[in-house]
């Protein structure tokens, strides 16, 4: 059983793709009863209905139940497929929200109001309910209603402008979805802050969570140069203005890379010894000091590159780490699967799912004693918990059957038949 820190807290999640759903995931990891309300009957972007699709794992059954893009942000939730745009579905939604502590939505600004679920309406429906809304540019402001996506936030915060290699064309710098990783953390923090405030006031809060502003809060280095010196930060790729060597280097082998860093003279001496050139760090050598290495950056980087190219990656990492400098393999999932560190900590988890079978899934962002997080529930099937949740809300079997026949709830997308229950 997972951590119980948020036991007794009900969260309703109206969100798609990753930032909102992963926030729901983390709340579920902490013990909240998270109910994901699908965009039913409209197919969500992470649930493809046609194959072939690169996101769908091999197997039988509807492709939208086998999509990794859906699986990676939807553990530890119940799943309700409810057409909240229909009159009957909206009535179910209102009844659900009367029992809810936190509702999270990732609609564009204005959509909740159009659904009759704006903050004033929600507060009237359930004064103890907190609503967290995370449109790209926030709820208020001149870009209200604009559509947005994770890589776009990189662009408008200045992150993509400064993060590429200096010699690379702008078009060839890949986008990052960093906000998808950090916004969920603020969803947890904001939820707890609102719950704590409610204990004092008796009322829920409205949280305006602009994903652009949340990402900006992660980019202190990007803004510091501008804030202090009114200079654009340099585009430095993997380098560091004040640390040499600091980079990603190719090792022996086809496509194998390692990060090597020596932040001070002690680490540099370790790296020099690992490279078989202890003289690089001896008194009198031009590279023996931080300032000397910065002055001769190109030569130092060239020597370290040659050292890395001559060595096998994992042996190099072990040798450099043993001598106190920073080294890390550029690891892919297979490396993580084979990592003795992650294995010793039993971090990867084998998780069974009705349509994919048992798969190795990533572990949790944190450990908690005495109640570590656990995969209590794998990614929910479409409408898997319709009956369970609606029964809890007081709907009888006949009403549920009627809601199903009217299409207000369902268990499938596209032309696929409803799942047998």
């Amino acid at each position, binding site marked *: 059983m997972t951590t119980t820190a948020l036991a007794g807290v009900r969260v309703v999640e109206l969100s798609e793709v990753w930032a909102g759903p992963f926030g729901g995931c983390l709340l579920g990891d902490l013990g909240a009863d998270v109910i994901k309300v699908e965009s039913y009957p409209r197919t969500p972007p992470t649930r493809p209905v046609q194959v072939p699709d690169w996101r769908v794992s091999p197997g039988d059954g509807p492709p939208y139940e086998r999509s990794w893009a859906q699986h990676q942000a939807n553990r530890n939730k119940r799943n309700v497929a409810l057409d909240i745009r229909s009159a009957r579905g909206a009535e179910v939604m209102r009844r659900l929200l009367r029992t809810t502590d936190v509702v999270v939505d990732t609609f564009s600004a204005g959509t909740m109001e159009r659904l009759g679920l704006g903050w004033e309406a929600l507060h009237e429906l359930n004064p103890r309910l907190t609503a967290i809304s995370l449109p790209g540019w926030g709820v208020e402001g001149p870009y209200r209603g604009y559509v947005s996506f994770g890589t776009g936030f990189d662009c408008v915060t200045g992150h993509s402008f400064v993060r590429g290699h200096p010699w690379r064309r702008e*078009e060839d710098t890949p986008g990052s979805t960093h906000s998808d990783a950090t916004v969920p953390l603020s969803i947890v923090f904001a939820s707890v802050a609102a719950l704590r405030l409610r204990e004092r006031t008796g009322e829920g809060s409205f949280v305006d969570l602009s994903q652009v502003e949340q990402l900006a809060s992660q980019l202190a280095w990007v803004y510091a140069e501008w804030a202090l010196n009114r200079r654009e930060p340099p585009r430095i790729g993997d380098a560091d203005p004040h640390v040499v060597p600091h980079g990603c280097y190719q090792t022996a082998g086809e496509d194998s890379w390692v990060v090597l860093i020596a932040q001070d003279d002690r680490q540099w001496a370790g790296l020099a010894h690992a490279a078989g050139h202890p003289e690089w760090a001896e008194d009198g050598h031009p590279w023996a000091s931080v300032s000397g290495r910065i002055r001769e950056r190109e030569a130092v980087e060239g020597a370290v590159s040659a050292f890395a190219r001559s060595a096998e990656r994992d042996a190099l990492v072990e040798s450099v780490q043993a001598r106190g400098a920073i080294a890390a393999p550029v690891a892919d999932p297979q490396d993580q699967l084979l990592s003795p560190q992650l294995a010793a900590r039993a971090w990867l988890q084998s998780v069974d799912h009705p349509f994919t079978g048992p798969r190795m899934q990533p572990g949790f962002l944190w450990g*908690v004693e005495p109640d570590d997080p656990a995969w209590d529930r794998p990614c929910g099937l479409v409408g898997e918990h319709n009956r369970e949740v609606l029964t809890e809300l007081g709907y009888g079997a006949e009403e549920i059957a009627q809601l199903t026949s009217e299409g207000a709830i369902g268990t499938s997308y596209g032309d696929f038949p409803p799942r047998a229950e």
Partner: protein
Amino acid sequence: MSVFAWTNRMARQRPPEGPPLRYAPHTAAMQVGFTAAAVASAALWDRERGGERRDVEISAVEAHSGNVDTNFTAWSLNQGIAPLSAIRSARVFPVGTYACRDGFVQFTAAEPPFFQRSCAAIGHPEWPEDPRFEDPAVRPEHHDDYMEVFLPWLAARTKQEVFHEMQSHGVLCTPVLSVEEAVAEPVAVARGSFVTVDQPADGEMLLAGAPFRLRGIAGDAYRALPAPRLGEHTAEILDGLGYSRDEQIALFRAGVTG
């Protein structure tokens, strides 16, 4: 950066040719801090309401590896590596960064309804029914036909013009802004996304504001304070812990505080 390397994030960030690429410096450290704050807030709140004390452990590598943007699940379900985000290709378009009159704009508009909307934005609302573009399986063969109109359309407009025109059609499009432009964006100014604090010794300093705005019945409680000076609150904290002035002087002389 070494944390990025250990976690599949850097392996994913492989531009065409050349070494993998990290995110901006120090973003990994910020993310670990936010992770710790998130779980600690839940644990503290539960203790306040009578729950048990908890020991929380954060491994920087696990905090990153388990997060969503490593796309580890793509590999665990399909043995595949998720493709790079926002890189241009002739197979999926318009996606990625494109030049316009005064800089660059980024699109994520290959999927419906965004592709269809992009066609309307560049003056061809009929293209979604055109046999060349109707079927996504056939569409890559006609990449050049699309670009023949799309690229000149961009080249005739500034990045702000492209952004607002595309957004008026509901297309996922953003301008690529410098830091100076980002802090001066109308939306950032109107919302007060960046705040100014009076930083002792450095003067006024611009900082990113709150990562979220909690509007309780008491209003918006966020307040940005400057970074404290070295030891600025030593006496205040020691006072709170019950140390007398004489004891504090002794601690200072012994080099325990400074």
